[in-house]
């Protein structure tokens, strides 16, 4: 028999096929939870409105709560109206979307639950033509990840797929483990029943437009990358400030703290995007390969160096937008002597050719004066200052060219530069050149979940955390967690709600001649 010659498909040329979604069923565990109501279903509906969901599509929600399909649909509709006001809700389009929503009450700790899911998925395959392609989204407590994944595997719903095969997929929410050992343990258990390319570890920060724009900004503009190194950059500040407290998550937060909740995942991802080398392509693995290299170049923290590189804090009572708010230890479900840090500031050093000697400051805290997340790149000063009036010995008064990539609340980029104040004398005035996503493009900015879920449906893991990144991140943070667990704080609470964190954080950055940005 003569083998038929394999030819390329000439019809594919010029077609944008990278965003094609195959028919599939999307299963949400924890479908009665807040995340499903606030983020997942609105994101799915937004994808539906944009025509990005396939014709063959079904969404199956499951949790312990008893509900009919109709009750689930109504609950999701009410949540959509409440939590996604930027989406155009129309009865007609919602009805068509809702026709693909189903619900089954199951107990994920019992095998029978998975049999119910399995038989329902078989029905949906036949009804919606979803062809046995399944995505399982674990919107549950992290303690349920392994039991659910094992349950799915035992029922045959999850199997190890060859690298060339894309299904089934499982999405898990952070935290990916509680520390290095539990993270490795989680991964080992996951990898027993499925391969890495089937696992999508979601970090919603990576779905934000501005976070994705960091790569475009750095590598599509020829003017910035030549300056993006130790020769031109003085230091970098990464700030994640929240005015909110623990918002009913006291028990979780008491165990997690600022390091686990924000630094180990979101801020490390931001750090990697800002510091990484250009990837060789936009292939998912190429970008993730470069990101992991950044973490591997971080100078490890040791018991001796920690106090010079890290500061912790916990908020006490204070004022937020004119209202008194309780201290962390007075929050619901929080122990009155909890040693949990609600604030962390770090000074990181990167031992590589590009960043040697450039301090990277990172701070993250709850109940701070303002909600803002940004990356600020401070450039070195002009070598000779002609304008004497522009000099100050106080670092907080000094001016640099600063490039700010603002992640939230308003996504955008600004560049601070000096200009001449109009008038008869040469007065230097520092101004911001501002770009805001919302105004520049007019269109509604898709939510992070929209982008990330779409990527998962397509099978593009670029914006998801890979196992080695998670592990490297834990490796860096672990000595700090251990040190802070061992040496209990004696001064907590050490910052007032509504302030910018403990004074020690100011001292930390001042020790290298810098000051936190006044935001």
């Amino acid at each position, binding site marked *: 028999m003569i083998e*038929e*010659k*394999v*030819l*390329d*498909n*000439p*019809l*594919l*040329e*010029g*077609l*944008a*096929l990278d965003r*094609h979604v*195959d*028919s599939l069923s999307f299963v949400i565990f924890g479908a009665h939870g807040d995340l499903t109501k606030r983020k997942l279903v609105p994101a799915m509906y937004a994808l539906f*409105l*944009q*025509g*990005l*969901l*396939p*014709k*063959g599509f079904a969404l199956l929600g499951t949790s312990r709560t008893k509900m009919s399909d109709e009750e689930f649909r109504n609950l999701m509709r009410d949540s959509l109206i409440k939590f996604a*006001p*930027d989406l155009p809700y129309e009865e*007609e*389009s919602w009805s068509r979307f809702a026709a693909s929503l189903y619900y089954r009450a199951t107990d994920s700790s019992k095998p029978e639950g998975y049999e119910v899911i399995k038989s329902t998925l078989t029905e949906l395959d036949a009804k919606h*033509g979803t*062809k046995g392609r399944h995505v399982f989204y674990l919107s549950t407590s992290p303690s349920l990840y392994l039991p659910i994944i094992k349950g799915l595997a035992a029922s045959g719903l999850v199997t190890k797929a060859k690298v060339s095969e894309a299904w089934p997929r499982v999405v898990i929410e952070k935290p990916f483990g509680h520390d290095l050992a539990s993270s490795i343990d989680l991964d080992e258990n996951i990898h027993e029943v499925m391969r890495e390319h089937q696992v999508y570890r979601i970090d919603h920060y990576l779905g934000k437009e501005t976070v994705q724009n960091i790569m475009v900004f750095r590598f599509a503009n020829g003017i910035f990358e030549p300056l993006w190194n130790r020769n031109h950059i003085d230091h970098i500040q990464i700030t994640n400030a929240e005015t909110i407290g623990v918002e009913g998550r006291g028990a979780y937060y008491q165990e997690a703290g600022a390091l686990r909740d924000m630094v180990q995942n979101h801020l490390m991802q931001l750090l990697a995007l800002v510091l990484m080398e250009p990837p060789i392509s936009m292939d998912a693995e190429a970008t993730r390969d470069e990101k992991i290299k950044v973490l591997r170049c971080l100078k490890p923290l040791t018991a001796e160096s920690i106090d010079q590189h890290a500061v912790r804090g916990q908020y006490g009572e204070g004022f937020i937008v004119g209202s008194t708010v309780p201290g962390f230890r007075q929050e619901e479900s929080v122990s009155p002597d909890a040693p949990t840090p609600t604030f962390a500031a770090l000074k990181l050093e990167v031992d590589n050719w590009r960043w040697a000697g450039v301090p990277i400051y990172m701070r993250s805290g709850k109940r701070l004066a303002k909600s803002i997340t940004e990356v600020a790149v401070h450039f070195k000063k002009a070598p000779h200052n002609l304008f004497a009036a522009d000099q100050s010995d106080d670092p907080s008064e000094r001016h640099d060219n600063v490039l700010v990539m603002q992640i939230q609340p308003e996504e955008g980029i600004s560049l601070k530069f000096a200009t001449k*104040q*109009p*008038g008869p004398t040469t007065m230097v005035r520092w101004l911001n050149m501002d770009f*805001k996503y*919302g*105004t*520049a*493009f*007019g*269109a*509604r*900015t898709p939510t992070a979940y929209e982008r990330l879920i779409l990527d998962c449906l397509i099978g593009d893991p670029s914006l998801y955390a890979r196992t080695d990144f998670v592990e490297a991140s834990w490796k860096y943070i672990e000595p700090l967690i251990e040190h802070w667990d061992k040496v209990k704080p004696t001064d907590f609470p050490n910052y007032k709600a509504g302030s910018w964190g403990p004074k020690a954080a100011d001292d930390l950055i001042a020790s290298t001649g810098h000051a936190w940005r006044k935001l």
Partner: protein
Amino acid sequence: MSLPAVKNPQDAGRTMSFLSGNLAQVDVAKIERELSRLWDSAGNKEESSWTPVVRACALNVVLLCDEGKNERMFENLLAEITLRHPCRAILAVIAAAQVEAVEAWVTAHCHFLPGRLDKQMCCEQITVKWSGQSFKSEGLASVVTPLVIPELPSWLFAGSNHLTRAVVEPFLAYLDHLLIDSRFSDEEDNAELCGERLKMLASKWQIALDLADRAVVVDLAWLTLSAWRKAIALAFDDTDVSIKPSRLQVVKTITINYGGDNNGFSQALLLASWLTSRIHLEPSKAKLSQKKSGSSSSLQAQFVQPGSSDAIELNLVAVENSCTGINSFEMTFRDGSDKLNVDFAGGALKVSNADNYEYMELPWSSARDKEGAMEPVFNELVDFAFEHYSKDMVFLAAAQSAVKLLASCQC
């Protein structure tokens, strides 16, 4: 200390009118100055007559049209398109008049930002009207092109009756994208296709080819085909309706059913030309037949593949009383073992080969919502064009094939 800028008390009323979308006549030589003054006034934070505004501009759009119906359609388009694409819009209007004159007006299109009522995003529109007896493109271009903001993508959209090299070229010295629509306008849709209409269709694609080295040319008719192209292409890829790409070497017949008279014909022809150009088919003969009862035309053509003596048959069949655009597509192969069908069904495209089938969602929300409409609306297409602008060699090859087929076409 510098002195504060002097405020004119009449500015507020004029600015309010400008931000509300009313046209304000300005001196043609002072358009930029007047706009600048209006924006300065609009940015006055002490003024409480209007919601704070942000002037936004990410591209230039020049729309060339005749006074009257065309003009209103473009004004409506701008109102829609500025929602998603902040731009400087320049409406270049040609009017018939005894006395030659050039006049200008400015206005703004303001929209509240999504989810916010405290700020409006505004774009500016400049209307330049040339009146006279004998239109010279260079004259209008000399007013319009200096208004194009440098360093931003710039688009020219010329109405079908102005899509000639003589009219378009003076603008393309400053604009880098040309938007055309090879579909026929409403008035042209029912006219007999043989003769002038066929020549007009060929000339639109010929212009695209001629100007392709000067500007990125985007044809809205081509954009309507993207979902069909994708559906057909993926049938030959690793999907549920898998037909091996090698089968493209043994195609026997291609049949495209279309609705919407001449309008649908141009799309069907472009889709067929895309296929023939991708698999390198050369036309050997083509005949266009007009139905006596109406204006619908059908085309039968034969193609050959280089190195093969087998003829490939193309049929473009007009379907009476159906919605505009492609209705269905069928491809058969010489050994009869596969048959590819793509049909518009339930707001999506159903791609099938024997018992295997898959659905593909249409990207157009206007089409998805209705059983009876498979085409995107005009604004959606323009929106899509602005977001996906790049030189499309596949389109140019399809246009070339279409021109060649029309040249060999007998009526």
